[in-house]
Structures are given as C-alpha cells and as structure tokens.
C-alpha cells in the first residue's frame, strides 16, 4: 500500500486530491497549496479539511461572534474567556467554576442513545481539560411534535443515552429543558452543558510549550469512529483494497471516562501536566495543531505510536478519528515516569507519541516517512473566514404583521389553564428528569423542577477552607420568539436564564451559549444568526454578564427547511450562602403572594397562541433588560436579607402557569385577585416578571426594597387551601392541576 508522503506529494504535484468529497471548496484547497508550496499529502488534507470545517473553524460565524468580545462588559470574575476549551469564572473563596454548553444534534438524530451519550462525554472532557472536576451536567433538549412518530424514536433514546452516560459517571443532572415543536422533527437539538469546579490557581490550558517536552496520548485506543469522510482519502485516492464503510456513529464508554476524570485530577494534583487538550471533533488533528499553535509552535509526532483498536487504520483515518474518551497532555521528560505511574494506577493506557519542538512545524511520520509537515497555526487559527451575505427573510414582514390580536380569546379561562398546563411544552418533565440522577455526589441543593439547578461548593482539596458558597445554573431558549425576531429572541433567552438564576437568590455572573441554526449558506438563515448574536452581545453588556464560550451548530435543516433559529443560553450565578437559597413555589400556607414586574398584552409567539390556535406571528414580548437587571438585583438582595420564602419566574404560559406550578411545588393552593383584564393578566408572556411569596410581617420591607429599585410589586393574595383560586375568574383543585400536569408526557411516551 502506498503511503502518500511529503516526498511523494512533491514528486506528484498534479495528483488530484478528493478535497471536494471532504467538504472543502476549491479556493480553500488552493490556499492549502499556497501555504505548503505544494499539494497537500492525504494526511495533510485530512487535517486541513477537518480543521477548516464549519464545526472546527467557525468560518461563517467568526465575524459575528467577535461581538461577544468587543461588546463584553467588564467583569472582575472572568478568569478565562472565549477561545479556550471552556470559560472560567471566579466564584470567591479561592474557588473557580468552569462551564460550557455544546451541541450534539446530528449524531443524536442518527443514533439517539449513543449520540446523546457521547454528547455528555464530550462536554465533560472539555471541563476536565480546564483542570476542573466536573460536578454536574444539564441538557437542553428540543424535539419534534410530541405526537409525531419519530419523536417517539428519538426522545426515549436521547433521554436513555444522557441518563446512561451521566449516571455511570456519577454526575448529577440538575436541570435543563425539554421542548417540542414540529420544526425539530428532522433535527432534534441536544445541547449538553457541564460545570466543573477548581481552585482558581489551578487552571490548565491547551498549550504545548517547552521544546523537548513529551506529547502523551492517553485514554481509549483509536478506532474507526466518526470518520465517514476520511475513508474517501484512504480508499478513493490510493488504490487501496475497498474499505468497509466507516461508521459515523461513535459509541462511548462512560466507565473509561470516569477513570479519565480521576486520573486527570491526580495528574493535576501531582503537577505533572504542562498543557492538556481533550480529543473531540477532529481528534488527533485538532489536539496536535491546537496544542502546537498555542505553545512553542512545533511538534513532532510518530503516528505509528498511536494505540489502535483496529490495526487496519490508515494515517488519514487516525488523524480524523473521533474515538471517545481520549486526552492529550504535554509533559516534561522528567515527569514522564510519574505521569505513567498515575495512568497505570487508574488503568488508563498512555503512550508517548511525540515531542514539542521549536521548528514552527507540525511534523508527523508513518513508517519512517514524513506524511505531515505544516505550520500548525495555519490549520488551527488561520482557517478561512467568511462574510456570508445575509438579508431579512422574504416572509419576515408578513410574519410580524400576522399578529395574534385577531385570534379568538377564550371564554373559559379555567379550561385554557388546564389545556396549557397539560400541553407537552408546559407539562411536567418528570418523565424525563426522573431518569437522571439528580442527587449523586450529594451537593445538589436545587434541581428540576426548580427554576435553576444549584450546587453547594464542597470539594476536599488540600488548603481549601470550607465555604458556604454555591453556584446556580439555568439554560433557556425559545425558538418561536427567535423566529419572530432573532435579535429580541436571543435577548429573551438570556433574560430568562438570568431571571431563573436570580429567583433562587444567586447573582448571575457569566454566560455560555449554544447557537442552533440552519444553513449559513442561506442568506435568510445567516440574517437570523447575525441578529441573534448582535442581540445576545448587546444584552450581555446591559446585564453585565460576559459570554465565556459556547458553540455554534449550523446546518440544522431538512432539505431547505431550517429549524426555528434557536439560541440556547446558559447562565451561571453564585450565591454566598446556599442556606439562603430561595426554593421554587408556594412553600407554606399564609404567605403573601406578590407579582414583580409589569404585564402588557403580549401574545406573539406565546404558548397560548401555539397550543390554542397553532399560530405563530407578530412580535415576541419586549425584552426590557434594564427592568430585568433591576428585578435580578431585588431578588438577590431580598434573598440575602432572608425576605423571600419562595419564588418562581414567569415565562411560557405567563402568570397562570407560574401560579399553577407554584401550587404544585408543595401541594399548597392560593387565593389571588387580578386587577386588569383577566385573560391578559393570566396568559400574557411579558418578560421581566417573577412571582414571590413573603411572610406577612416582612412584606413592607420587601415592598420598600422593590420601590428602591423601581421594580413594580403587586400584592396578589395569600397562599393556603387545596385549590388555586383566582377570584371571580377560576378555581381548580391542586389535585386536578397535578393530574393534568404530570399525566401528559407519560400518556405519550408510556
């Protein structure tokens, strides 16, 4: 079998290469030839094609994502910003948290169980590579209509995969979302978030400095996973025996990942790691080019040393393999024995495959022949950048003009409440979240169905004083809002996640995002993307929370029909004392119920329009970020002063759903009175609102605090009894609310 060496490439300059099959454009291929001064070898083409792919290079999104940096608010908490494996924020008392959300959409459609499982595995490794112990995960999931056949294939598989991988790792799943819309039937969104904890002086970075330092590949061996594309190189170009079709599906092994976690933490503690990178998309190609580009600049690797699960793999395939549970570390030669001993203790195979050099070149050999010789930065950082054309979608004005004003208002608000409460998007998600372990590691303070997940900071690390602190996390997104107005939709997603964190009493600190869109080559989709990024960046500045990292997922479409633009935003907050957290809902009888924030008649993209009329049109609710910020300040301050007994944010379904969910939290009813038009008061989705319950004797102090921050505070009534009573409008026993709320998903999924 011929190896396509650099020497051979020089002597056969005109040999056609299958760049188009690897998704590379002619001008991109020409640029590779210009960089190298010759045609690339098969292995070099493998590296450039994956590193310059949309997924790795962000070539269509980069020009827009820059706003997250240029518009970033100043934050003393930010320790590591965008561009690393995950952002890191200072949470006080010497502790830091690192968190990130990432998509695994397409693999989860092809093979729901393994696709979703490896999505968890991948994001956990990102967090590990920052030097942290992963402490929790959450998943933001979107599926086709609950009644659609394929949803019954995809949803149970995805939920099983997440619970399998996460439960095996022993990581609590503390929140997330489950939403349904027919636009996701061919493109479910599986966005996985992980959060990790570390001492703030122990951050690790993906860098390979110091010539002579060794490059170690450790974890699982490399097999033909997820390299459908690379087989083109291995078989089409070189008159090779016909290769079996390589699987696009990767199978994860959570027990190997668990060993990797513990192994890495011991390696960090022993201080034998100079730089580290996880292997995700683009595997060895990505790890070697990125490590080298951020370090001294050069690296020499012998690919024959990579441990293989399938000995027939060709070098091009080794470079592109996405086999799971692998990491790459840069280690001083004198530390190699200690490094290997720790790996051996944890049963983690580890192999030195090369070393750092000062040549400025990434050089790889295969059976003694040089098959790769490139400047690593050209693959890792200097990929193509596109200013894709974009314009407002042709139907956007008509969509916005089709307001919900003309929809028939319901005569029976009790029936509408029950109809919404039992609809798939608002019904209890216990069928899903009960399959996840929420309390393993025993640091979970709040988990689903609370507004945000909250964890206490409790890790046994030498030198760390005990702390009362905790972190809170929430993810939110609403594709319907973003479809109507992507700028406002992205801001509303941030506002809701921010509010969800604030209602627990935690101060929002930082943002991660997963931007799910259709094809960037469609100018209408690109407009949605550009607007969403602009909106999110502006909102982050107003709310004072920087974006620390995230992920862009393009090409979420079936044929020419794209999903709703769906920016999913995760917010991390910190609370000084977890004992002062605010639980969700009505926690006791005899408490005053108050509504914070103003309500306008805003039904565009609302759950009511969706469920009752199948209507999507008009404009989403206004995103008043200054009001949002003031509301957050009141909630955090009130929690710290011990003024709040319970709280709940208002979002999809409006006040009616928030009241019902608050009753369901502990099975305690309430009697409230409305001051305005009942339908609008109950079902409008105006943003910037929250429900709180306060002890009667603390109410004046709380109302004064609201006045000080200019947050409207309306007393609605009191908690107690066995029914939700909205005076002169409706009355529903809590037991009936519960049956409706908890019965919906089991009725569909069994």
């Amino acid at each position, binding site marked *: 079998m011929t190896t396509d060496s650099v020497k051979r490439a020089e002597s056969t300059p005109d040999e056609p290469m299958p760049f188009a099959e690897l998704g590379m454009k002619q001008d991109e291929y020409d640029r590779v030839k210009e960089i190298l001064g010759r045609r690339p070898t098969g292995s070099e083409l493998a590296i450039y094609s994956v590193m310059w792919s949309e997924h790795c290079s962000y070539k269509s999104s980069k020009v827009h994502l820059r706003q997250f940096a240029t518009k970033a608010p100043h934050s003393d908490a930010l320790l590591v910003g965008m561009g690393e494996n995950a952002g890191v924020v200072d949470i006080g008392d010497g502790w830091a948290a690192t968190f990130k959300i990432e998509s695994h959409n397409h693999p989860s459609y*092809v*093979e729901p169980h*393994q696709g979703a499982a490896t999505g968890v595995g991948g994001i956990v490794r990102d967090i590990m590579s920052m030097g942290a112990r992963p402490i929790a995960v959450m998943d933001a999931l979107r599926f086709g209509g609950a009644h659609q056949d394929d949803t019954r294939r995809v949803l149970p598989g995805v939920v099983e995969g997440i619970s399998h991988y996460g439960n095996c790792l022993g990581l609590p799943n503390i929140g997330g979302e489950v939403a349904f819309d027919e636009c996701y039937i061919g493109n479910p969104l599986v966005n996985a978030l992980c959060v990790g904890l570390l001492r703030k002086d122990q951050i690790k970075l993906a860098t390979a400095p110091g010539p002579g330092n060794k490059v170690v590949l450790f974890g*699982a061996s490399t*097999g*033909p*996973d997820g390299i459908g594309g690379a087989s083109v190189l291995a078989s089409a170009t070189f008159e090779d025996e016909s290769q*079996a079709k*390589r*699987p696009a*599906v*990767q*199978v*994860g*092994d959570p*027990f*190997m990942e668990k060993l990797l976690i513990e192994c890495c933490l011991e390696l960090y503690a022993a201080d034998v790691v100079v730089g580290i990178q996880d292997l995700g998309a683009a595997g060895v190609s990505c790890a070697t080019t990125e490590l080298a580009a951020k370090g001294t600049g050069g690296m020499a690797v012998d690919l024959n040393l990579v441990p293989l*699960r*399938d000995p027939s793999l060709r070098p091009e395939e080794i470079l592109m393999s996405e*086999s*799971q549970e692998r990491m790459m570390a840069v280690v001083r030669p004198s530390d190699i024995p200690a490094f290997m001993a720790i790996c051996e203790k944890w*049963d983690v195979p580890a192999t030195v495959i090369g070393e750092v050099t000062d040549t400025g070149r990434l050089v790889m050999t295969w059976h003694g022949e040089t098959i790769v010789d490139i400047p690593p930065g050209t693959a890792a950082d200097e990929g193509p950048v596109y200013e894709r054309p974009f314009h407002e979608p042709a139907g956007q004005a008509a969509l916005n003009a089709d307001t919900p004003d003309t929809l028939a208002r319901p005569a029976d608000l009790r029936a509408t409440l029950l109809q919404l409460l039992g609809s798939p998007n608002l019904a209890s998600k216990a069928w899903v979240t009960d399959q996840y372990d929420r309390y393993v590691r025993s640091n979970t303070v709040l988990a689903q169905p609370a507004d945000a997940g909250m964890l206490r900071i409790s890790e046994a690390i030498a030198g760390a004083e005990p702390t009362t602190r905790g972190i809170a996390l929430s993810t939110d997104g609403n594709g319907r809002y973003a479809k109507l107005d992507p700028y406002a939709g992205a801001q509303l997603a941030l506002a809701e996640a921010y509010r969800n964190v604030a209602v627990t009493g935690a101060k929002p600190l930082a943002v991660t995002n997963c931007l799910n869109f259709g094809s960037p080559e469609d100018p209408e989709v690109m407009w949605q993307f550009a607007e969403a990024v602009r909106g999110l960046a502006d909102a982050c500045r107003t709310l004072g929370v920087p974006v620390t990292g995230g992920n862009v997922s393009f090409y979420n479409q079936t044929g020419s029909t794209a999903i709703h633009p769906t920016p999913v935003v995760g917010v991390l907050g910190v609370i000084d004392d977890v004992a002062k957290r605010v639980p969700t809902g009505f926690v006791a009888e005899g408490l005053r119920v108050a509504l914070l924030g103003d309500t306008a008649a805003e039904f565009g993209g609302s759950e009511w329009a969706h469920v009752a009329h199948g209507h999507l049109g008009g404009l989403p609710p206004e995103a008043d970020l200054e009001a949002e910020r003031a509301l957050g300040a009141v909630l955090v301050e009130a929690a710290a002063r011990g003024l709040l007994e319970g709280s709940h944010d208002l979002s999809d379904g409006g006040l009616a759903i928030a009241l019902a969910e608050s009753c369901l939290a502990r099975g305690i009813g309430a009697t409230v009175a409305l001051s305005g038009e009942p339908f609008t008061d109950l079902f409008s989705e105006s943003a910037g609102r929250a429900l709180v319950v306060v002890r009667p004797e603390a109410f004046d102090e709380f109302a004064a605090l609201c006045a000080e921050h200019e947050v409207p505070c309306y007393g609605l009534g009191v908690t107690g009894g066995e029914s939700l009573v909205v005076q002169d409008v409706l009355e529903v026993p809590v037991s009936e609310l519960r049956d409706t709320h908890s019965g919906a998903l089991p009725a569909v999924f069994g």
Partner: protein
Amino acid sequence: MARVIVDVMLKPEILDPQGQAIARALPRLGFSGVSAVRQGKRFEIELEGPADEAAIADVRKMAETLLANTVIEDYTVRVEA
C-alpha cells in the same frame, strides 16, 4: 413448531465496552491466551407454525425493527435444527 435464532452483534468497527471489560477481566481470573472479546445478544423465537420462507422473512423484519439497532449492529437469522 420451530425455533428461529437471531444473533445480534455490534458491527465490527463499533466500540464494544462490555466486550473489552470481559477481555480485561479474564486474565485476572487466570484465563490466558485471549486476545479480544466481543459481546452480542441471542434471541430464540418460538414460531407457532413451521419455519418456512414467509416466517423467516417475518423474523428478519422483527430483527430489523426491534431486535437489532441496524445503525450500529448486524444480525443473522437461522433455524435451529
């Protein structure tokens, strides 16, 4: 009455963590000389009638839709003598 056997195995190129775990456990229990293990599933389908062509075709359909995940698994169908 006939019995049809369906064997389901992960495709050869797909990672098999269970098989690997077994392979790692064998030497600990004193078994040597094993280079690899792959684990699969065996289904015994009892038919009410004979295992004729139509019945076998039916079993194949069962394998295709329920017994095997053909994205990552292969299956074989045979009649037990």
